[in-house]
């Protein structure tokens, strides 16, 4: 299977790879997928004044899964919580030119975004 140039680029030069401390102020963490399924994504956002100022990811999965989560962190930075909610997996498919068999990677990335946002909101409401 041939990969699109963008997938290859994200795979070779992943953006924002790494982790925040989960209990750090303003950090929301989303972890989706399962090792048995062959992909697990951890996506984290750091929020200040309702805006995502930083994002990080770690992914166990194929090249397309890594690229999808790398792209997601790029897109999240600078967005408000509300704007971030609107990122759709189809946007990722389009941007990375993912073939049909890799659409689940984009779905997983959208799920990871949603999970990170939900975690952040749960934490801020708890205060």
């Amino acid at each position, binding site marked *: 299977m041939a990969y699109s140039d963008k997938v290859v680029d994200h795979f070779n030069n992943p953006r924002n790879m790494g982790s925040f401390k989960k209990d750090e102020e303003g950090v929301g963490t989303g972890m989706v997928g399962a*090792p048995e399924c062959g992909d697990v994504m*951890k996506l984290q956002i750091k929020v200040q004044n309702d805006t995502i100022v930083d994002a990080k990811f770690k992914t166990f999965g194929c090249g397309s899964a890594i690229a999808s989560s790398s792209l997601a962190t790029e897109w999240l930075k600078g967005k408000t919580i509300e704007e971030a909610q609107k990122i759709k997996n189809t946007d990722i498919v389009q941007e990375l030119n993912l073939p049909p068999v890799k659409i689940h990677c984009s779905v997983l990335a959208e799920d990871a975004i949603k999970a990170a946002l939900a975690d952040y909101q749960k934490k801020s409401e708890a205060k």
Partner: protein
Amino acid sequence: MKLPIFLDNHSTTPMDPRVLETMLPFFVEKFGNAASRNHAFGWEAEEAVENARKQIAKLIKADPKEIVFTSGATESDNLALKGVLEMYKEKGHHIITSSTEHRAVLDTAKSLEAKGLATVTYLPVDKQGMVNPEDVRKAITDKTVLISVMLANNEIGTINPVQEIGRIAKEKGILFHCDATQGVGKIPVDVQAMGIDLMSFTAHKIYGPKGVGALYVRKKNPRVRIAAQMDGGGHERGMRSGTLPVPLIVGFGKACELCEQEMAKESVRLAAMRDRLQAGIMAALDECYLNGHPTNRLPGNLNISFAYVEGESLLMGMKDIALSSGSACTSATLEPSYVLRALGVGTELAHSSIRFGLGRFTTDEEIDYTIKKVIEIVNKLREMSPLYEMAKEGIDLKSVQWAAH
């Protein structure tokens, strides 16, 4: 050193230039039909085919008359299973095979089952991928007509105790088919000593051309009969009709001759390189697991699972090395390798497996390069893996409630 490097010699092999050389005259100059009995063109082709038959038979210690040419090992497997089941249907309809066979055997067995033509027992294998001969014995019923167990596995390289299975088959008077596609030309094969009645193998796995294979069909003690699955001119003693592809057969013969002459030296060289590859990788990386049997395996085979990294991403990170993975992402079925699953390898480790297949043209320099690249990419991807991070934090990944999708 030329890139990309080919380390996928279980999938196919490059043709040996010496093989190509022997084939060339048989395309334009010596183009005759080996079945033409009335002119020199036909005689010349027939002579070349019979010479190849001898070379092939010699490699497996058979009689040349016991070689039936086919299009490849898949066809040979189909012909063996379907041909035997049809021919011996009065005697019974039970097949015994193993769960790690190649799809050409498994899917043929399933197709026979689905059509109501056979009942099939799929024997389990042990943790190293070996069939237990005693399991074969226990599975035999009065309706069993065929035992089909592979010589060496295409993914993990494990070599089965074929000789013992052959002995049990003889003792019980049941035919024994062996898919020896990965074993012939790599390890010594003796159809007499191994008690094999039918055996599938192919040219392109042993530095010969694609598109030709053979089914060994025993002629004596017992005389094995199979029902043809292809109707036509009655070639190959009526077992497989169709004009013989003379150039391919000539190449197949030469490929077998070369294996026969060079196997002893070549297998020692391959095993030494393979062991060095394994040692080089394992010395530098933790949590790498060898799949298959540690010693009783094909000399050119190495299959390793790299915990916490996914196979397809490993391949992507080493795109100048041609390899294969048991990861679901590289298969059409979205399931990770059924062979590794049959060994009891966890799904997550099956997703993380890489198969290295060394061959006649693999060099020491290529092995050095591969060791370096594997270490580099595994470290890079582990750095990127949330699972590796969790494991390093001491979290038991089995205790985590995953949000499966």
